[in-house]
C-alpha cells in the first residue's frame, strides 16, 4: 500500500501500474463444465482471481417453511478459501461474505425465470480460490455461466466487472493496488447485457456527478467485454467437440478446401 505522503501516478502516459490501458480488463478466461457431479459448473481466472462455481438444481427446498410457492429461490453462497488472501482467512462466513451472497443472489434472481420452478431452490456455490480485488464480479460472472451450463432458463447472462477511481483517474477493473489508493473509489457493477438492465451496483468512496457518469459508462462497456468472454466459453464447450457447424463455419471450411485444391 502506498504511504500517505508518497505520490504515485496510477496512470502514466495512458498506462496503468500493471501496464494496462485505462479501459482494459485483466486477462479473463472461463472454462465450462469442470465439475462432473454438479448440474452446471464453471472455472474462471481473472487476473489473479481464481473462482470455481457449482450449480445444483432446481431442487426441493428444505426446510419447507423457506419455500416460496411463487418462485424458485437462488441461493448464492460466496465463500473465500482460507488461502485466497495473503493472511489466512477465517473459514467462518464473515459479514462481507454474507453481504456479497445476498446481493449476488438478488442479481441472479432477476436473470433466472424463477417463477417456473415454485417451491424450489437453485444452489450456486462460489468458492474463491485466489483473490486480488473484484472477486464478487468474478464470482457473479462465473456463476451466470454455470447457471446457463446447468440448463436453467434465463432472460440473459449476467456480466459483471469493477470500475472506479484511483489517483484521480477513472479506470476499469481495479486491481488490489489500485483499490488501495488513498482516493480510491470502487464500484462493482453487473448488468444483463441485452437490455443493459443493472442488477448489481455498489459503491465505496466519493465521486462527483461527472465522474459517476463516466464510471457508469465505462462499467457497462466493461461488462459487455466480459459478456463476450462468457458467450465464447459456453460455445467453446460444444464447439470443441466439433458439434455445431453454423452456416458460416461450413462456408469457411469449403473455402479452405477449395484453396487447398488450387
Amino acid at each position, binding site marked *: 500500500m502506498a504511504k500517505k505522503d508518497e505520490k504515485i501516478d496510477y496512470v502514466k502516459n495512458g498506462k496503468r501500474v500493471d501496464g494496462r490501458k485505462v479501459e482494459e480488463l485483466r486477462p479473463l478466461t472461463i472454462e465450462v463444465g469442470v465439475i462432473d457431479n454438479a*448440474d*452446471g459448473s464453471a472455472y474462471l481466472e481473472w487476473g489473479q482471481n481464481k473462482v470455481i462455481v457449482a450449480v445444483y438444481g*432446481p*431442487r*426441493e427446498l428444505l426446510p419447507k417453511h423457506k419455500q416460496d*410457492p411463487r418462485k424458485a429461490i437462488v441461493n448464492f453462497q460466496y465463500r473465500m478459501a482460507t488461502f485466497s488472501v495473503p493472511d489466512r482467512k477465517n473459514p467462518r462466513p464473515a459479514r462481507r461474505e454474507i453481504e456479497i451472497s445476498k446481493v449476488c443472489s438478488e442479481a441472479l434472481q432477476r436473470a433466472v*425465470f424463477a417463477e417456473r*420452478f*415454485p*417451491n*424450489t431452490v437453485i444452489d450456486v456455490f462460489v468458492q474463491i480460490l485466489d483473490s486480488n480485488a473484484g472477486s464478487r464480479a468474478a464470482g457473479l460472472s462465473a456463476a451466470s455461466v454455470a447457471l*446457463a*451450463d*446447468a*440448463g*436453467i*432458463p*434465463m*432472460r*440473459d*447472462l449476467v456480466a459483471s466487472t469493477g470500475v472506479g477511481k484511483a489517483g484521480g483517474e477513472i479506470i476499469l477493473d481495479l486491481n488490489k493496488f489500485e483499490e488501495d489508493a488513498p482516493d480510491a473509489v470502487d464500484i462493482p457493477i453487473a448488468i*444483463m*447485457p*441485452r437490455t443493459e438492465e443493472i442488477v448489481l451496483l455498489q459503491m465505496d468512496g466519493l465521486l462527483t456527478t461527472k465522474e459517476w457518469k463516466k464510471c457508469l459508462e465505462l462499467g457497462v462497456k466493461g461488462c459487455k467485454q466480459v459478456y463476450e468472454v462468457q*458467450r465464447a466459453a*459456453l*460455445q467453446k464447450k*460444444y*464447439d470443441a*467437440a*466439433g*458439434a*455445431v*457447424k*453454423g*452456416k458460416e463455419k*461450413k462456408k469457411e471450411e469449403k473455402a479452405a478446401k477449395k484453396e487447398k485444391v488450387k
Partner: protein
Amino acid sequence: MNLSEKKLVIPGELIAEGRMKLGSHVFVENGKIYSDALGLFYENNEIASVVALKGRYIPRRGDLIVGIVNSEKFSGYTVDVNTINTSYISKDAVRDRLQRGVVFSAKINEVDELGEARLDDVRVFYGGEIFSITPVKVPRLIGKSGSMLNQLKDETGCNIMVGRNGWIWAKGGDTKLFAKALNLIEEESHKSNLTNKVGEFLKKNKVKK
C-alpha cells in the same frame, strides 16, 4: 430440414424478429423472440424453438416414465421419478401392494401447478438395472421412429424400457455394453449421424459368443 442450419444459442440470444409460432425454450420481449437456454436453434424453421442441451425433466401429462417407490402413505405411495418434487401414486391405481425401492413404469395422469405429478398405468419391474441419461437427450436415445432404440435392443439383447424422465430400465443381455452405448449417446447427442456411430460402436464392442 438441413442439419447444417442449426446454430448454438445462449440464454438471452435473439433468434427471430416478428411473428412466429413459439416452441420450447423461447420467450418474447418487445415483439422479439429470444432463447432462454443454452441449446440448438434450427434456422429456416417455421417454429421458433430451441432444443436445450441440458436441463431437468419437467413432468408433462401423458409422458411414460420410470420411477422408484419412496414411501407408502395412507392412501398411496410417494415416488421418485427424477423430477424436482416427489410424485404420487394412488392405491387405486395399483393392484398389489408396492414395497419401498420397487422399480416401475407409469404414465403421468395429471400435473399440478407446483409440478407434482400423479401417476397411472403402473407396471412393476422385477430385477434388471436402472440407467440414467440427461432427460433432454431421451429423444436422441429413441431415434427417428425408434431406430436407435431398436438397434440397441437388437445388438445388446436387453429388454429396455425408456422413461421420458431420463431413467431407463434394462434387463438381460449385455447391459454393460448398453451402459457404454448410453455414455456415447450422452456425450455426442448434439452431433449428427449418431445412430450410425452407435451402430458401429455396438458392432465393434459386441462380445462374440
